[in-house]
């Protein structure tokens, strides 16, 4: 029999799966979120409860016995939503509990290398997003941005904007996943959004967009025209929401 752990798709759920893998004889061959479960005659499905207390235990154990950096890497890897990443995370944690803080240096190890490289991809996109997000001002002065990133990063990008736009209301809407970050000058939450939002722009919004487009055009040096370099720094997949690129 092949053991599949089925969890609810949340990070807490994944931590519970790790907990289970440690404390029961039925070790998992795969860990899958409910949405990704596979219908297979030979599979024994083991449902994982999401218990906040157990999740906290695992969370703190990783933080203390491995390192806060390792915890961050695991979380970023989880946000990548890449198929099969759960088992890589489990293998990383297993090794981490053996080796301790130094685990991150052991890049020749398969599990460490995998988590490290996925972590790099997610943080690279996160960094890109800090620059490429474009807010539009709505009638009620709320700043509204649409994105559809490869990875599920609204939650890790929000703190960056809260720091710099602490005195504004803003929404960052992940159109791909139908979730949004809402911030109201005090608190922020991530919520699922069903259907379209009713959006009315501020009367001045278009003026600023035109000013930005003009700036973008005139700051470029014609004699050094280099669209390839432009695309490699700013891949086309991000242009959809870039005002200066017609988004």
């Amino acid at each position: 029999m092949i053991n599949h752990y089925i969890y609810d798709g949340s990070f807490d759920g994944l931590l519970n799966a790790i907990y289970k893998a440690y404390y029961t004889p039925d070790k998992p061959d795969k860990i899958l979120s409910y949405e990704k479960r596979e219908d297979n005659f030979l599979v024994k499905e083991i449902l994982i409860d999401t218990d906040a207390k157990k999740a906290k235990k695992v969370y703190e154990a990783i933080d203390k016995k491995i390192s806060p950096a390792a915890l961050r890497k695991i979380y970023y890897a989880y946000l990548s939503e890449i198929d099969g990443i759960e088992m890589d995370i489990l293998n990383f944690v297993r090794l981490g509990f053996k080796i301790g803080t130094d685990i991150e240096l052991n890049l020749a190890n398969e599990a460490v290398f995998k988590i490290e490289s996925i972590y790099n991809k997610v943080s690279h996109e996160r960094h890109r997003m800090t620059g490429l997000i474009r807010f539009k001002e709505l009638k009620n002065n709320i700043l509204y941005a649409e994105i559809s990133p490869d990875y599920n990063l609204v939650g890790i990008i929000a703190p960056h904007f809260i720091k710099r736009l602490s005195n504004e209301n803003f929404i960052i809407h992940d159109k791909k996943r139908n979730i949004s970050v809402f911030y109201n000058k005090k608190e922020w939450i991530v919520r699922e959004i069903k259907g379209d939002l009713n959006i009315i722009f501020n009367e001045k919004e278009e003026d600023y967009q035109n000013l930005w487009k003009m700036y973008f055009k005139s700051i470029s040096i014609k004699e050094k025209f280099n669209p390839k370099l432009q695309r490699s720094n700013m891949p086309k997949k991000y242009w959809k929401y870039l005002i200066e690129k017609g988004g």
Partner: protein
Amino acid sequence: MDVLDKLRILSDAAKYDVSCSSSGSGRKNKKGGIGSASINGICHSWSDDGRCISLLKILMTNYCIYDCAYCVNRSSNDLERATLTPDEIVDLTINFYRRNYIEGLFLSSAIIKSPNHTMELILNVVKRLREVEGFNGYIHTKAIPHADKRIIDEIGLYVDRMSINIELPSENGLKLLAPNKTKKSILTPMGNIRNRIVETREEKKKFKYANSFVPGGQSTQLIVGATEDNDLKILKLSEGLYDGYNLKRVYYSAYVPVAKSPNLPVLDSPPVIRENRLYQADWLLRFYKFKADELLDENMPNFDLSLDPKCNWALRNIGIFPVEINRADYNTLLRVPGIGVKSARRIVAARKFGPLNYDNLKKLNIVLKRAKYFITCNGKYYGMSSMNPEKIRKKLIYGLDRNIFEKQLSLWEMGGFNDKSLHI
């Protein structure tokens, strides 16, 4: 004239300044304020020439009393002229920032009336941004040669970075093309800014609330190809600026012919590959512990356009290679083509867990296409049958992916973001 036209004219006039960086400052937001800086800087867009856009880079005005031959804004040039009011600059900065178009403002100006008068106007704008608008995003301003120390010292308390552009890398070049500037008028304020940075850092150690002065450091720009100065001369100048003036960055700008003058060269196109080679060499000075004299000398005063400076250096010093990946110390690893700062660190860390094999190296982000000619892995050499520098050279130039030059170019221009070790 409306703001749209002014913005068009004054950003067009500012575009030849290549500095775009918003790094080096960790300025934090304050209660009720807007903005913060990011220590590694953030690029917000890339223009059609592939350059990063991080700041709103504009001139306050392009009316100039000077007539520098190489400069598009020279007084004798027949050109559309405009001036932005402080209100307009502040409004653009804040509203672009709120929409996350930019990290902040890079304010420069042509010289109106006098250097002091121009600097007073710049001071007025940055003061309003910081004190009235509560703006804590990144601000970079020019320091104008011949301006009073008093004004520069005051502006320094509000901005994150200041730059004085040397532009022409020799005194002779200045005489020929920018007769209103002298070596002294550039180096004196540069020295003053350096001293103030050092002093305020000391004060900050003693008094927590002491003001910072230009926390992102100062930078400058050198124009490449407008004068006869060779790469060795330019690189030696940069080395001197890093060592003697603690500059954060020296930018290089391939000269774009914007004027005709008997003193200026005639170019078909800007020397962009030469510019790229200088950036690569500059990187080697700052992060790879190379000296200018190791990379070029009087017999070879210019960079090879077909191969990067590090590969060139390695081929000229082929005797010290190959080095053993599992034993070579960090500084030696740094000198291997295809091994960067990050991968050198990774090698040193990862081999503590056991000897690395050739497959492991691929995972550590080493560019084996280049590195394999210069290393052994557990005693085994994976390069060619002999270590003949001429043959390796051909392999490096022709055997590589055709796109490698462009990939490399874009990497350098990214400024190593995400790599905490490479604060610019």
